[in-house]
C-alpha cells in the first residue's frame, strides 16, 4: 500500500516538492548535504550539492515531470543548457576545498526520458569521455531509480497500525490549500517516534524516514506553494525530532544533517513566500467581503513569520535583505489584529526583528502595545467589559471561528493570561519601570498561567499528558528589585537541550506552538539575540 502511495506522490510531485525528500534519501545513502538551494537562477544548475560516502562532491539538478516524459524539444531548449552549467561550472562553496577535482553531476527527474533524449545524453557523455572531459558526464536518476531509493525507506518504521495508517492517508489526501492539521500531524509523529526500543543505527534512519513521511503528507501543500503550511509542518517535525533526540540521548553527529535540512527548508519556504508577496502585493489583499473580515488576523500571523525570516537574515549577516524586509513589513503595522493570546507569538517575533534592526523607539512601542493589550481587560474602565483574549491554546483559525460563532464557542477567563508575565519581563529588560508602575494595578489583578513540565523535552509535544498547569496569584505590593532581578536571571536548566543549542528555533516554535510560551525560553532567546552582532 505504502509503495502505491509513494508512486502516486512521485507522479504528481514538482521538482520543488521532491527536493527535500530526495535530500533525505541521499542522507540515507550516506551522502552529506552541503547545500540545498531554492531553485533560483544563481546556483548554476545545482539544486543540491553533497559529498558522497567516498568523499566525491556531487551536484544534482532536479527537474519535475509529474507523471510525464521529458521530450527532445524540452531537453534541447531547456534542460541541455542547464546540464552544461551543472557539469561545466565548478562547485564553489565555503565548505568545499578547491583541490582541482571536478564534481560528479546528476540529472534527477520523477518522470521518464523519451528514447531520443536518453540517447542524446548517453551520446554526449560518450563524447565528453572521448574528448578527455570526463567531468562533463551527467548521470541520470529517473523515476524508476527514485522509486527504488524511496523503497529503501525503512518500512518497519512507517505506520503499520491501521489507525495510524489511516491518519497518514488522511493527511496525504488533504488538498494542500489550507492550514495543516497540527493535531493530526502531531499524532502521526507520536506514532512514529514514541516507540520503546531502537537500535543506534535505526535511530538516525528513523529521523530521515520520518522526514520523508512529512514530505509525503505535505506534498500537496508543496505543489500548491502553501509556504506557511510547510513551515508549520517542518517545525512540528523538528520539535518531535528534538524530543526523540533528547529522550534517546542521541549525539549531534547522528542528527545534525537531518535537522539542518529541515531548518533550511523552513527558511527556503519563507524566502519563497517573501519572493511571492514582495513584488506583487496584490496577493496580500483580501479576496471578497468575508476575507476582508479576517484579513488583519491573517496579516498579523504572516507578519510574525516574515519577521522571523528577517531575524534569520540579521543573525546570518544578511543585513541588506533584512533592511528590505523591514521596509516591506511596515505596511503590516496598520492592520495588526490581536486575535487572541496566540497572536502575541508572531508579535514577539516582530518585536525581536525590530529590536535587532532598529535602535529607535519603535520596537519598544510595539512591546508596550502588546503589554497594554494583554492587561486591557483588567483596567478599571474595562472592569465590566466582556472583551478579552482567547487563551493561546486557540490558534488563529480557532480564534477567528470563535469570533464569528454565535454563541461564542470558547469561554475564557478574563482574569488569566499566559503571556502577560513574559511581556512584563521584556519591559523590565527594556528598563520600563515607569510604564510598569503606571499599569501595575491592572497587571497585578491578572492570574498568571504557566505550565510546569515533568521533563524539559515534554514541551516539544503538541499536548503533553504529563506536568501541571500552574495558576499564580500575584503578590501585592510588588518590589521592583525583586521583579527586575527575576527578569534578568534565566533559569535555563528548565529548557530542553536542543532548543538551547539552536536558539533560532525558538521564535518559529512559539508561532507554531503559541501555548508553549515560557518566560525562561523567551529570556533565553532575547539574551542570545542581544549578544549576536
Amino acid at each position: 500500500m505504502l509503495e502505491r502511495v509513494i508512486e502516486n506522490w512521485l507522479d504528481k510531485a514538482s521538482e520543488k516538492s521532491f527536493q527535500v525528500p530526495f535530500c533525505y534519501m541521499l542522507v540515507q545513502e550516506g551522502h552529506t548535504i552541503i547545500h540545498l538551494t531554492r531553485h533560483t537562477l544563481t546556483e548554476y544548475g545545482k539544486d543540491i550539492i553533497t559529498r558522497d560516502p567516498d568523499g566525491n562532491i556531487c551536484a544534482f539538478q532536479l527537474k519535475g515531470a509529474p507523471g510525464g516524459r521529458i521530450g527532445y524539444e524540452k531537453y534541447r531548449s531547456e534542460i541541455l543548457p542547464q546540464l552544461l552549467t551543472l557539469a561545466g561550472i565548478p562547485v564553489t562553496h565555503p565548505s568545499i576545498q578547491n583541490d582541482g577535482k571536478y564534481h560528479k553531476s546528476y540529472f534527477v527527474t520523477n518522470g521518464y526520458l523519451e528514447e531520443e533524449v536518453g540517447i542524446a545524453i548517453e551520446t554526449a557523455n560518450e563524447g565528453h569521455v572521448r574528448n578527455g572531459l570526463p567531468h562533463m558526464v551527467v548521470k541520470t536518476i529517473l523515476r524508476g531509480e527514485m522509486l527504488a531509493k524511496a523503497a529503501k525507506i525503512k518500512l518497519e518504521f512507517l505506520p503499520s497500525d491501521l489507525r495510524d495508517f489511516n491518519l497518514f492517508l488522511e493527511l496525504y489526501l488533504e488538498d494542500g490549500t489550507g492550514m495543516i492539521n497540527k493535531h493530526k500531524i502531531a499524532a502521526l509523529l507520536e506514532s512514529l517516534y514514541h516507540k520503546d526500543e531502537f537500535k543506534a543505527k535505526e535511530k538516525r534512519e528513523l529521523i530521515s524516514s520520518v522526514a520523508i513521511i512529512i514530505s509525503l503528507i505535505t506534498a500537496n501543500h508543496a505543489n500548491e506553494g502553501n509556504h506557511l503550511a510547510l513551515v508549520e509542518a517542518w517545525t512540528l517535525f523538528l520539535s518531535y525530532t528534538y524530543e526523540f533526540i533528547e529522550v534517546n540521548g542521541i549525539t549531534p553527529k547522528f542528527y545534525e544533517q537531518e535537522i539542518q535540512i529541515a531548518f533550511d527548508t523552513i527558511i527556503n519556504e519563507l524566502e519563497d513566500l517573501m519572493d511571492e508577496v514582495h513584488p506583487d502585493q496584490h496577493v496580500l489583499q483580501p479576496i471578497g467581503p468575508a476575507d476582508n473580515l479576517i484579513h488583519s488576523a491573517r496579516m498579523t500571523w504572516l507578519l510574525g513569520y516574515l519577521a522571523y525570516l528577517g531575524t534569520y537574515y540579521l543573525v546570518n549577516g544578511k543585513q541588506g535583505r533584512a533592511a528590505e524586509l523591514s521596509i516591506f513589513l511596515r505596511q503590516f503595522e496598520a492592520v495588526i489584529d490581536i486575535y487572541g493570546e496566540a497572536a502575541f507569538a508572531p508579535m514577539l517575533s516582530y518585536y525581536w526583528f525590530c529590536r535587532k534592526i532598529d535602535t529607535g523607539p519603535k520596537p519598544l512601542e510595539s512591546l508596550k502595545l502588546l503589554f497594554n493589550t494583554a492587561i486591557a481587560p483588567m483596567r478599571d474602565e474595562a472592569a465590566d467589559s466582556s472583551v478579552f483574549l482567547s487563551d493561546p491554546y486557540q490558534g488563529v483559525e480557532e480564534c477567528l471561528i470563535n469570533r464569528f460563532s454565535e454563541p461564542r464557542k470558547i469561554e475564557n477567563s478574563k482574569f488569566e493570561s499566559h503571556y502577560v508575565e513574559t511581556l512584563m519581563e521584556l519591559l523590565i529588560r527594556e528598563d520600563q519601570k515607569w510604564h510598569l508602575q503606571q499599569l501595575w494595578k491592572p497587571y497585578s489583578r491578572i492570574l498568571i498561567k504557566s505550565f510546569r513540565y515533568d521533563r524539559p523535552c515534554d514541551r516539544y509535544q503538541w499536548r503533553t499528558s504529563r506536568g501541571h498547569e500552574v495558576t499564580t496569584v500575584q503578590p501585592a505590593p510588588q518590589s521592583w528589585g525583586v521583579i527586575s532581578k527575576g527578569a534578568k536571571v534565566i533559569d535555563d536548566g528548565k529548557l530542553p537541550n536542543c532548543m538551547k543549542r539552536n536558539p533560532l528555533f525558538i521564535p518559529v516554535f512559539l508561532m507554531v506552538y503559541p501555548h508553549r510560551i515560557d518566560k525562561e525560553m523567551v529570556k533565553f532567546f532575547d539574551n542570545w539575540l542581544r549578544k549576536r552582532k
Partner: protein
Amino acid sequence: MVLRFNEVLKVVNKHITEYLDGAIRHYAALPKMPERVVPEGNGVITVLENGQEADVELRKMEASATRKLENFVDPDPEKIYGLLQEIAFQIASQQQQLLMDKVGGAADEVGNSLAFKGNLTPQHVFDMYRRITLDFYHDGQPHELAMFSGPEMTQAYGLIMERIATEPELKREFAEIIDLKRKQWNVRESNRKLVG
C-alpha cells in the same frame, strides 16, 4: 454486517453528550460554578500570593448504570434519557464530593472552618463573613457568594438573612462587617503597586 448510520450516530452521540452535560449541571451542587477545560497535563497547581502552592491532581470520574438488554431494544426514548439522568446524577455526586473534600480541606488548613452546635444564629453568619475575603465590584457592591448547604440549613440561613435585613441592630452590625470588608478590599487594591 448490518448497515449503520454512522453520520447520524455522530449527531446523536453529540446530542447525548450535550444532554448529559446539561443533566450533570442540573444535579450539580453549584450549577453556576465556572467550568474550564484543562488542555493538557495531569494536574493543576495554584500558587498563592504568599508563594504557597495548592496542588490538585486530575481525577477521572466514571459512572455506570445497568439495564436489561430488552430495554435497549425498547424504542421508548424516555428510558434512554432516564439512564442518562441516572449517570448524570452519579457524576454530579462525585463532583460534589470532590468539591466538598477540597474546599473543606482548604478551609480547615487556613483555619476558616466554623463548627457550632445548636441552631444557626445571626452571630454565626457574621462570624462566617468576618473570616472570608470578600471582593467588590467597582460600584461598591460585594461579589456574590455561593452557598452549599442541606435543605434545613438553607432554610435557616434564609430566615437569618431576613432578620438581618429587617432588624436594625443586626442590619447595622452586618453593614459594619461589609464596610470593614470594603475597606480591606480598598487597602488590597491600593496595595497593587510597584514599589522600590
